[in-house]
């Protein structure tokens, strides 16, 4: 504390004369003004910090924060051994903003050379009114890097995925293809679209001035790549099937054809090929005929390949035995106003010989012993008239009329495969009842994991074995298809030669088919071949389709390393001494 009384100067200053006598309102006014200004400032701060906060934060963030999409690729499709059948790989698309682009003639030339177009086309594209044009889509990343190195103004690029099918036309119908935006349009690409499709992810990051990512902000959404699909298909068998089918169609001057190879134990589809086909990598000129997956979407009257089912039903119901004599003379049978005839007239045949010689009359006579309902139920049980439900687009059920409306002649013709229509895949699957012990195996497009599926029982094991023996006879000399024999293996199978229906009438055009399985002692593979309109002189299933069966089945069995079930014939190979194993095999037989 200081003492003012001891200091005269202070006393002077405190003189009442010098006292400022301001009116009190002035100081109050000033205080109010200052208060007002402060509240204005506070108000503004409140507005910026709280009311308008989101907008300003966003503006601030946009200066440094970037949202990046992390792309996910579509899953691969591979065969059972892991060989790639379809794969997506990133490509670049080059775009331009015409108004921002100004190229010197030299630059245009360089760019045109890299994009593999000519300068004229390029300048034409750049002279449009559009604000954005693609100069070229889906070019290899290396070329795109060269384009980027030119550092042209107004020209940029973005990443796009392109799907490749290295096996091309060979697997076209099974694998199918995708359209724009990775949408599956055909085959497995469509059937497994949901699983193959990936979910793109995203993240938001802070970028520095150099464009480098400095920090992650917020949560990262990880991309989900599409699942890889492992098909049951075996590329090697597929190729064998495809090339043999193609060869046979060329040789027989046929219109179309299909082939299926099934694993009799697991129900897996090891090969499925059609002709005509297409190259999925280049789909510019594509016709409907090429696109059709005939083995699944086209039905045909199967002809004699259905006889074994009629016979099996009769055997199963104890209407006949394998050695019951059926009188097939004189090779004609009249039911109502219609006449059934055999291609070659036969006399009295046993039931087994009806299959071996493929007698229509014999089959019709056996069918006459069976009630229509039973026959319909059997056809239904083996899958005729039902959609196979593999997921392929355009799968068909075929035609199987309800039994209540069958006329007697219909039941007779159906016994040998006319008046009923099936797809090749239905036919191949139906034969699994003979290749297995009477049960129908469910089919699988994807590789099955070791578990052996149990099928639905249709015939008894005894019946299935008896029919199997009859089918073996059909392939042996004296049968309809000696050309289906394979050295080293016992083969069982049935030919089919059916007239084609055109406008409701049978035309003199044929569908030749062969369905069979091997090794007959313990069937592993089922092969079904269908050749549409062979027109090079031969048209019988035994001449047209059976050789295809033999070569595909033979090479497939060898590829899979399935042991032969016929012992070596020593006379054929004087050099090679008979191995003890062969002798043992002989003893077993």
């Amino acid at each position: 504390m200081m003492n003012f009384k001891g200091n005269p100067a202070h006393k002077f200053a405190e003189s009442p004369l010098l006292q400022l006598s301001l009116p009190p309102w002035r100081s109050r006014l000033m205080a109010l003004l200052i208060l007002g200004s402060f509240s204005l400032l506070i108000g503004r701060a409140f507005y910026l910090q709280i009311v308008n906060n989101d907008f300003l934060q966003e503006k601030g963030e946009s200066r440094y924060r970037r949202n990046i999409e992390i792309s996910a690729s579509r899953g691969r499709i591979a065969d059972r051994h892991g060989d790639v059948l379809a794969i997506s790989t990133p490509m670049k698309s080059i775009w331009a903003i015409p108004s921002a682009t100004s190229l010197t003639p030299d630059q245009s030339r360089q760019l045109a050379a890299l994009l593999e177009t000519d300068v004229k086309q390029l300048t034409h594209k750049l002279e449009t009114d559009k604000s954005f044009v693609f100069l070229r889509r889906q070019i290899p990343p290396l070329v795109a890097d060269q384009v980027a190195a030119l550092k042209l103004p107004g020209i940029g690029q973005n990443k796009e995925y392109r799907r490749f099918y290295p096996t091309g036309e060979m697997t076209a119908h099974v694998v199918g293809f995708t359209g724009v935006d990775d949408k599956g349009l055909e085959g497995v690409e469509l059937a497994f679209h949901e699983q193959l499709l990936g979910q793109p992810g995203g993240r938001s990051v802070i970028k520095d001035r150099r464009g480098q990512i400095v920090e992650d902000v917020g949560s990262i959404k990880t991309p989900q790549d599409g699942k890889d699909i492992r098909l049951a298909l075996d590329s090697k068998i597929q190729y064998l099937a495809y090339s043999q089918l193609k060869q046979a169609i060329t040789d027989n001057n046929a219109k179309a054809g299909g082939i299926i190879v099934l694993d009799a134990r697991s129900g897996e589809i090891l090969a499925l090929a059609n002709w005509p086909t297409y190259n999925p990598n280049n789909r510019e000129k594509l016709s409907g005929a090429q696109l059709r997956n005939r083995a699944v979407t086209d039905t045909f009257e199967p002809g004699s390949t259905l006889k074994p089912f009629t016979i099996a039903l009769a055997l199963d119901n104890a209407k006949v035995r394998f050695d019951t004599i059926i009188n097939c003379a004189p090779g004609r049978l009249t039911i109502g106003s219609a006449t059934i005839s055999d291609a070659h007239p036969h006399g009295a045949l046993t039931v087994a010989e009806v299959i071996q010689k493929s007698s229509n009359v014999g089959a019709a006579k056996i069918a006459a012993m069976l009630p229509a309902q039973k026959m319909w139920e059997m056809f239904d049980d083996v899958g005729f008239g039902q959609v196979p439900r593999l997921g392929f687009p355009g799968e068909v059920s075929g035609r199987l009329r309800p039994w209540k409306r069958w006329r007697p002649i219909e039941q007779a013709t159906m016994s040998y495969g006319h008046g009923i229509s099936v797809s090749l895949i239905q036919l191949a699957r139906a034969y699994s009842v003979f290749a297995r012990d009477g049960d129908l195996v469910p089919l699988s497009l994807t590789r099955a994991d070791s578990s052996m599926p149990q099928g639905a029982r249709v015939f008894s094991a005894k019946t299935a074995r008896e029919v199997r023996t009859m089918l073996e006879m059909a392939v042996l000399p004296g049968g309809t298809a000696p050309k289906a024999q394979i050295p080293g293996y016992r083969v069982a199978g049935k030919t089919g030669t059916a007239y084609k229906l055109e406008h409701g009438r049978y035309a003199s055009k044929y569908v030749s088919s062969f369905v069979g399985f091997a090794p007959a002692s313990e069937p592993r593979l089922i092969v079904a071949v269908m050749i549409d309109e062979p027109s090079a002189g031969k048209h019988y299933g035994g001449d047209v389709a059976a050789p295809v069966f033999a070569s595909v089945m033979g090479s497939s069995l060898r590829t899979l390393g399935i042991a032969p079930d016929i012992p070596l014939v020593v006379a054929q190979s004087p050099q090679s001494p008979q191995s003890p194993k062969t002798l043992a095999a002989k003893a077993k037989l």
Partner: protein
Amino acid sequence: MVRLNVFLLLAVVFCGLGAVTSQHKARKLFQALEVELERARQLEVEFGQLQLELSTWGSAPRIEKIAREKLKMRSPESEKIIPGTATGARTP
């Protein structure tokens, strides 16, 4: 009193510098991670391309063409095929 204040001041400065350094290091490491992740993606893409190449070069039609045309190979006639049971082969 003064000594405590000086000590605290130094501590604050030191901590501040530490924070700056570790932030810097974190960013460096983060960038390195980004580079490696990008490399991983590139390798993934390259793997896909190599798989594609493998499938293309190893496709059955190409192998057959080379075998037939260049190497003059052919499949044996059916009479010449003698089936044998190899050791290790799956028996039916």
